[in-house]
């Protein structure tokens, strides 16, 4: 593989700056590979916002470089207007309070439930084998 870490970092930086709402996750919004990523994208889906999503799993260096940029250890990571908002806990909490809708500049849906719709306990759907580790 000829892609350098430098190139990965540049790519991530431009993804963050060019997309108003940018989600880095394990898997894709259609096929999340971790419960935390699933809940986070579910919150965005409930708001009906357009967002860009990138799967960090294909190359462990994506996560290494992303965490170096954001100084945030875990996945998912949501960026809005180029700034890190947080991971699953923060995004879920801000969804529930309506702060996420405010931040992105959309209306909170009237039928917003206390939890994003596709809630499952994250632990159920985060098989260890799918995780990649920073330390290796």
């Amino acid at each position: 593989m000829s892609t350098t870490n430098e190139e990965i970092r540049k790519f991530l930086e431009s993804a963050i700056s060019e997309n108003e709402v940018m989600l880095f996750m394990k898997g894709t919004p259609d096929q999340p590979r971790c419960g935390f990523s699933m809940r986070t994208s579910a919150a965005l889906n409930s708001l009906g916002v357009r967002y860009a999503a990138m799967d960090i799993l294909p190359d462990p260096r994506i996560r290494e470089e992303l965490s170096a940029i954001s100084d945030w250890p875990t996945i998912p990571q949501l960026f809005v207007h180029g700034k890190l908002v947080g991971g699953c806990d923060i995004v879920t909490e801000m969804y529930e309070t309506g702060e996420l809708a405010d931040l992105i500049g959309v209306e909170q849906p009237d039928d917003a439930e206390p939890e994003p719709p596709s809630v499952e306990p994250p632990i159920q759907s985060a098989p260890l084998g799918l995780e990649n580790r920073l330390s290796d």
Partner: protein
Amino acid sequence: MANLFKTVPTTDELKHRIQQALPGADVQVEDLNGGGDHFRAEIVSDHFQGLSRIEQHKLVYDVFGNEIGGAIHALSLKTSTPGGTQ
């Protein structure tokens, strides 16, 4: 079960380490699946005053460094100040 792995942290250990870093904090730690790798912590502390959620969570993550994603597979956080969330 947890004893199979000597490096597995306990809820008490996590709680103790958070309280050392944030003296006076009210800390509740829960082992979500009993496996010693998915935890949830609810922390109420004066130290969070004036900080954004990101900054509050970073304070806690900093306690564990690269154990997050390693021995501690996941640490779910809810942080607030004694006066309420902010």
